[in-house]
């Protein structure tokens, strides 16, 4: 009798590569900006390699008003579920002529869920604060900041916050998905 040995079908896990860069920022009232960024993913997501947060250099463009950082992002995630698809959150900071840093904007965007290269513009906002705060901000800099920065992406009660729109952060992200078809995820 013939026996057929068969390997058990291998469990292939879904993986996501996020490769790209934070190109820069435009539309902010001042240049000389830098950016702190981070990725937030659900608990089903496992970071395999790469740094999931970081900070760019300060770019002080002399011509044109777009600040270029070209900050690389290269992250490899494995996931066991779709929930908590990663989000990129951003804080744009401004460094003034005295070398002081002040917050210019918060923003977040979802990592695209379809493979390929994506140009993303992440709009940012900034808490407005009371009129006293606005006044002092005008003259001495600084400004209101979130006490809990996870509010950037959780957005539980954000609508109650008085904010001002700030500029955009330009992102270029390439997404490589792997083995998602094994679990019936189409894209």
């Amino acid at each position: 009798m013939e026996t057929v040995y068969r390997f058990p079908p291998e469990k292939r896990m879904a993986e996501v590569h996020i490769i790209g860069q934070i190109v820069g920022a435009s539309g902010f009232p001042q240049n000389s900006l830098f950016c702190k960024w981070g990725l937030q993913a659900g608990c089903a997501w496992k970071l395999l390699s790469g740094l999931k947060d970081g900070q760019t250099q300060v770019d002080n463009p002399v011509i044109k008003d777009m600040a270029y950082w070209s900050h690389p992002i290269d992250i490899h995630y494995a996931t066991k579920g779709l929930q908590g698809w990663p989000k990129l959150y951003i804080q744009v900071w401004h460094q003034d002529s005295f070398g002081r840093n002040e917050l210019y904007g918060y923003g977040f965007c979802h990592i695209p869920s379809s493979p390929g290269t994506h140009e993303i513009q992440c709009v940012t906002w900034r808490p407005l604060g009371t009129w006293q705060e606005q006044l002092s901000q005008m003259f001495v800099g600084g400004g209101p900041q979130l006490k809990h920065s996870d509010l950037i992406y959780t957005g539980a009660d954000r609508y109650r916050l008085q904010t001002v729109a700030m500029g955009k952060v330009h992102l270029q992200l390439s997404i490589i998905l792997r083995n998602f078809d094994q679990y019936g995820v189409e894209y």
Partner: protein
Amino acid sequence: MASMDNLREKIKSKRKALQASLAVSSEVTDTRGLVVEEIENGTRLENATIVEEIQNEDEQVENLKRTMKAQRQRRKKMLIDDVGLHPEGSIQEMNVITHRQRTLPSLPETTPRTSFAEYSMREKMREKLKAARSKAQSAIRQEEASAPARRLTRFKDQESVTRFDTEVDDDEMRRPRGDESPFPSSRVRFREIANKAKREAQDELPSAETTYNFFTFNFDPEPEETEAETIKEKQPETLPKIDQEEEEEEEHDEDGEESAVTKEVEEEEEEEDRPLVKDNGEDEDDYLFIIGQTARDFLVVKAPDYESYHSQRQKDRKFLFTPSILTVSTSEKVPENMQPRFLEDEGIYVGERPKVSKSNQNILENRLLKNEEGKKWFGSDGRIIALANPIKRTQTRPSMFSLHEKVDPAIETLYKKAEKSMYDNRYIAGSAELQGHFQLDIDVAGIAFTHHPMFSREHVLASKLSQLYDQYLFRQQKNLANLYSDKLCALRNAVKNITDDRHVKSSVAQRRLMEYKSEIRTIRRMCHMEQEKDWTLLKSLAKVWKDIKSLREFQKFTNTPIKLHLRRQEINRKADEISYECEIQTEVAELLEDYQEEYKNKMEEYKIKYEEWKAWRKAKKAKKKKNKSADEQQVDDAEESSIVEEFPKPDPPEQVDVLLIEQQVRATAARIRRKPGEPVLAPELSMTATVTPTSQCPRGEQLRRQDVQRSTLHTKVIFNNKEVSRTSSRTLASDFKVHFGQIFNVQIVNWPESIKIQIFETVGISTTKVEVFVPIPETSVLTGSVPIEEIEFSSDHRVMFDHEGVGSGVPFSFEADGSNKLTLLTSGKLACCVSWAVSEDGVPLVPPIFEQNIGIQSALKHMDAILSIGASGLTDTKKLAKWAAESRLDPNDPSNTALMQLIMSTTGEAQEKDFFRLEQLQEEFNFVSEDDFNKSKRFRLLQLRNEEVAEFHNYKQVPILDREISEKIFQEYEKKHREKDVVDMTSHLDPHRALVARFLQKVRDSVVSRFLLAKHHHVLSDMVVEEAVPSISMLGISLFKLTEPRRPLRPQRKERKKVTAQNLSDGDINLLVNIIRAYDIPIRKPIGSKLPLTSRSARSINETFSTSQMPQSPTQSHEWFTNQTSVRPFVEVSFQRTIRQTATAEGPNPNWNEELELPFRAPNGNYSTANLQSVTDEVFINVFDEVIYDVLEDDRERGSGVHTRIERHWLGAVQIPFSTIYSQSRLDGTFRINTPPVLLGYSKERNLSSERGWEAVRSLSEGSYLSLFITIEPHLVPGESANEKFETQEDEKLLQRAEKFQKEVKQKFPNRRCVTLATDLTGKLVFVTRFINPLFPPQELLDAFPNDLEATTELVARYVSLMPFLPDSISFAGICDLWCTSDQFLNLLAGDEEEHAVLLCNYFLAMGKKAWLMIGTAIPEGPTAYVLTYEQKQYVIWNSTTGQYYGQFDAFCPLQSVSCLVSADNVWFNMQKYDTVTRIHFDTSKSNFWKPFFSRSFPFPGLSSVQPEELVYRRTDKAAAVELQDKIEKILKEKIMEWRPRHPTRWNRYCTSTLRQFLPKLELSNGAEVGIDHCAELQSLLGDYRISGFPINLSFSELRPIVEAVHSTGVHNTVIPHVEFALAVYVHPYPNNVLSVWIYVASLVRNR
């Protein structure tokens, strides 16, 4: 009215249809009904589509089906009622009326205005009805009487529906029908209920009871009164009521449709009983209908229904049960015939119950008791079973503080000033983001000394007494003895309960009984122990007090106000005696029981054995009989019987003696307890004794008191090794307590690393210092909520006084004769507390995340639950759990909760539901399970690579599929993890060394991980390479250069371009070894020639360094040279198993000048700086002699062919670690070749005829030398040592001075290394002079040559050199030099130059020599440390790692430059122009030559040494050495055979034994050349053999280097046929497990 008519007609038609169906059969079954309805539905469906425009037909059908079902049921009823109510029509009609109602809601009787749609519908209906009417006109006539009744009901119905839908317009009416299917059916049902209600309304007013019935559907068949008139009048009033009911009913229905359906069935049955009544009603209806169709006809005005409260109560009482609020007696609550049992009294912990008001509790109890199984709600104590109060006393969730009151804390913003981020990562990250600065409050309350040097004897006793009393109070408070005895009682009761409970004889009870008994035993033991402790404490209290009293009497004055009263508490003697006796009796009984049980067990055992024995004897007897009959089997039987013969006759166990037990019990009781009837003693300490005034004291005491008054104390608060504040000085009180009561608010920006409080005591001018480390508080420790803690401290400072003070660290005695000496050290308690401050608005000033790992901080700090909670805990929880299980912790006790929870969470017992899931549906939507996910090898590999785990760091490509990754990859990693603590004995042969290796590995790991973290900090220059913009001056110079004349014969040295390591790959790096020349290679010895024997063993240092050398006879040498084949040396360089060799040169001073290129491969292909630094490979440079033998067998062929065999004989080797080459980037110089002391067949005669010029310089250095130049191509940038600021305990002033000193000298001589501070093994900076301290070498070394100081010196140097060498650069790649103290070094038995040099220097100092530690550079080590001694007007330089010594003017001294000298009390820096050894003046007193660190301006502060006072040497086990020797020999022999796989390896035993005898002699002569004698000896012994071989001497660290050394000599490479080998190993043990290993390898070829 037209519509009315229509309706009437319609109804009639329907009724007709029904009648028709009735005609078919009076007993209508469901199916039939269905058929009938099918017909009717035809019409209805049409109507429905028109009026209601139901969009979804399917749903419609469904709806219809439901309505049909309801109708069917209703129809049954109706048929029985003989009413013939036709519901179908009603739906439509109702809708019609709805519309009407909407326009005119209040008046149902007004003429309805019909819409067009309705109108058309009506038209259609009318047509249909006409048709129907023509069909069965007669039937309608008959039934016409009932029709008006229908009419009436319809109207009511309409009313209700209208009411219900008042607000709803047309569309909304429709939508529910379309959207939710259950609605129509419910509506139908509701209508039907309405009908019913209406019917009742006709009959009578709905009372409360009927309403109740209405809801509960318990319709009692009631006779209906029919009064048409009343109905007419009452109707209007009834309607709202009905509506209300309907509305409620509607809700009801929607909730539970199904129940309604079932109830309907019930209704049917009920209504079957009332056809008669109905008939009457029908008539009435009929009548009504005919008479009037105005609204008044249908409405009835009724008074609001009221029922008196009393009657209501009466009714309620029937149905409701009101539990009383009276207390229930306990007997009702516990099972019958049971006494309530109070667990609390039995010593079992019962949690605090939650607070419930008494009346509520009573109500609940009363209610529960009414239930059938009510009693199960009550515990054995007769109270309701309740969990412990869940409310925690302390807040566990961090409170959120909001600055603004209204704003939700989650979205709160905070105004931040624009600030420069000046803090680097060592500071608290995000300190600028949050509240800014953080504050620690350090409260220094005071100091209380438990021993102080100025204590008088009485003070000592008093402090002892007060300590004992404290202990007594503490014990009293805990009252363990009582606790245990109570528990014992409880357990005894429990046992009694179980035993009393006859009928419960289950195994569970049995087991519990056993458990209880064993517990009783342990508790009893503990109880005894505690009692004994209490008793002894009491006794010692009394004793100390007695001592104090006698002392006071003796010295005739009182120093302390302490006083002890022993309060007697008389007790009832009789009762006490009885209880005592009782106790003893129970104990005896228990013990007896235990013994008896044991006896029983033994007895059983004995019985079994006895039976066995009996059986055996019987068998034996039988066998004997058999034996007689059958002799042939004798042999077998004999054997068998011999086996069984040994079966002994078992002895019966002994019975226990009751009296004996009782005696024992009484004895212990007498020992540990108060005798019965004796009064209870309660000590009481008071401070009421009067202290004798100073004037009345003797002189000594007066002096002491004065001293005490003179001494002042102050403390300094040191935060992160920086003094932040200090308290004011306070004088010491006579009770040796100081109160400061000062609180320091320390605002911090750095992470708190250490908080230290230094206590300074100043008496006159002398100051003593004691340091107390205070733990850094947890983040939850806030000011105001922390009690002051007492931290104990002590100091080993020796203090002696000439007055009454007993001193510290000095033995003293209380006895007059000075016996019973006591040595007490200064000690005390510092009362202080450290906590995080709270700002004015209540915000704690705590750093956001207090984590130890300050390496990589994420740039965005957000709230991380795990980090903020922090995972601190005991590490080995399994053990803990085991212990907890064994020790039977009471899991309910709150003091154990933390522990239990920990255990639970780890053992996973109650883990299942104990957490709250944030993402609820996560599990359900997961692709794969957690397990699978974690099992993935690929992911693991990727993660490990990302974490830079050494094994996987440079794993370039990770396979894409799991199955392509073999399990083996992780095996080693896991093994390493697992076996971290398992000592690998096999590879070390020596347990001590294995332990050391493990320890070293641990240190290395931690250092490396620290370094890895530090590596992630980049500075600008790491990232940005900016070429300097050429300035004008540079341009000018380069222009000037153009005009320079070209000088091709004088090439300029060009700097090689440096390459950063990370871009390199395999094959890019080469090691260039330039072999230039060698000096004094040993030359071959002509076989059989006699050599002049010049004894060298008896040299003295004096002789050696005298410039006048011993003249050697040139004639002899010359003659010898001429007939000598000399030597043909070549050099072989092997590195990473690549071998390159030079051409063969001639003569003992060959000149090769060849460049060898060896490829370099970094391990794992990782070319990062850190990895290159940790490369442990060595470059072996071996010098061989090429010997050519003529192997031509036949002389005749000599003319035509050359047959020779080339043999290579090892002459010596130079080993250079790669790390040295890497760190120095090039090595250039002349190196001493390590030649074996004896080279068989070679002699080290000097060739005097050649190179006469060098002779004078070299003559004294015996040994061969090799000139080399080694470098790496391309030029690698050596790694810079991480400039981490290590913490230190040195004085701030000293540190500053050191910094200044180093800066100064660095400016002048940038190349000279200045060492002032060294890092010790714990990573602290220590001033170097602290390492120098005279230490005695092992006594047996000193005893070896009692009269010969030089020999002893050499022996000591040799001993030091035998310590295994381990460079720091390998173990602590790129970190820094770590200096061990000498005892650590001796323990580790591994260290580099510094440790060796320090140890040697310390030995020399102890031996009375003038010695210094010399910092400089040498080849091949690079920066190193040597030892300089001054003997007999000469400076001698000692290489501590080899044990060699050199004169100052020795040209071959490997020390190249000297930069620093270190002694025990100063450091001198070389300020002379030259730093080569020969040109230096060593007189340190001249400050223009040597710049001293401590000078007059900054005197030596008297730094104490970090070295121990003396070294303790372990004697080395001789037997172990012999064992090791055998092991090594065996392994080496195996290895040699392994290396010669194609040739047989024969061992010459005779030679081996000869060599073995010779090795100890070599060791004794310190490896000096006794070889010549030995050669002669060997030669004579083995005359007919040609021997080539040599002994190798190594210090023993592990086996691998030994094997490597033997392999590198290449002795095994001989391929001469019939070659024989000899190998002897000798291990010479030195004290402290230092082992000198001698290996003698030789190959023998028999001379033909």
